[in-house]
């Protein structure tokens, strides 16, 4: 019973992460790689690596932006690296905020970069909290059958069908006019 409740919680968490755009298809790719590739713990490993790497990069960026003269080339290089690693794990929101950050770097806008860093940090912390919850819940939720591929497939299908319904319903009604 407890495992079922935790699975429900995990389902809801993953669903909200996809629905809010926190993670994208790349995250699902990693899951599939874990399931099909026979590499248990792969996703946890990559997620943990990403969190550690992103933490380090954000600290470096904060230090660089505090300097009296900001080296925007270095800032850009770090943001580029964070953008790349967030894309590799499917951290969509972090990736998008990094893209905006890079534009501000190219304009050498210090205040803009500081605001962008705050945004990146907030998005990253939000994602990290959810990843940490996921990693804590999963071992206990898996005392029973759970197919992640099927689950994420169903979540995406639900969103797709919702959009299709919005298109199809008006057309369907019009045929009976």
């Amino acid at each position, binding site marked *: 019973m407890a495992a079922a409740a935790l699975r429900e919680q995990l389902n809801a968490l993953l669903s909200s992460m996809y629905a809010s755009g926190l993670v994208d298809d*790349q995250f699902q*790719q*990693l*899951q*599939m*790689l*874990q*399931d*099909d*590739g*026979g*590499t*248990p*713990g*792969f*996703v*946890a*490993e*990559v997620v*943990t*690596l*990403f969190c550690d*790497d992103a933490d380090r990069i954000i600290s470096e960026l904060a230090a660089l932006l505090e300097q009296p003269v900001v080296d925007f080339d270095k800032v850009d*290089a770090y943001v*580029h*690296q964070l*953008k*790349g*690693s967030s*894309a*590799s*794990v*499917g951290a969509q929101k972090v990736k998008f905020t990094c893209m905006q950050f890079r534009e501000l770097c190219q304009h050498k806008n210090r205040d803009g970069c500081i605001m962008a860093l705050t945004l990146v940090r907030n998005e990253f912390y939000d994602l990290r909290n959810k990843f940490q919850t996921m*990693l804590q819940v*999963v*071992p206990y939720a*898996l005392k029973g*059958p*759970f*197919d*992640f*591929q*099927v689950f994420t*497939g169903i979540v*995406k*299908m639900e969103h*797709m*069908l919702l959009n*299709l319904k919005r*298109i*199809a319903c008006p*057309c*369907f009604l*019009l*045929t009976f*006019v």
Partner: protein
Amino acid sequence: MEAAAAAGGVEVEEGVTRVLLVDDSPVDRRVAQLLLSSDSCAGSFHVIAVDSAKKAMEFLGLKDGKEQAIDMVLTDYCMPEMTGYDLLKAVKALNPLKPIPVVVMSSENEPQRISRCLNAGAEDFIVKPLQSKDVQRLRNCSTVRPNNVAKRKPLVLQPSAAGAALPSGRRANFAGVAMPFLSVQVLHSSSVEVSQYVPLLLKLVVMVYAVLCVGELLHRWSSGSGCSLALWCA
């Protein structure tokens, strides 16, 4: 494998492509490593990972002119100090008659960058993030053929030369993360591939239905417009 490692090297089976993976991002490096060494690749690749082009050059023996023990180089484009493009040129210059295939990766999908690398001799250019569908492209670029490769002596890789290398056969232990993620039922890969097309098919069906509905409406209005107007005017 432990004995060979203890003796200072790793043996590689015949028909396995030895890939030198060069990427300064630890996340990207790990994802690529795991992707190429997963069961879905059926053991086609043996990956040696380094975190800089400089270390890649040392490993390839480009400084000392020693024999290379690599079948393919997979390198990131943007790296500090020495870029993947510079590494590409160096690798191609090493042995112009029998160059090592080089595949360049980048998170930027810039046509100029892509053509620059291809003109410099890169076998392919992959836009990150690396995915399962890119594995076949890497196989195509490799000169190693699984069943028809010439016999070569077993490769013994020196761990010291690799520096930050992580052989693919070994699973790294990350402090504080020893828990499994999801023990799930594995779907058959063909059913997963089919399921990717289902949303597209549904979209297509709805679009066709919408077009038919609009066509029907236009037909009704054009054929019944006279009657409806008469009713309104009466």
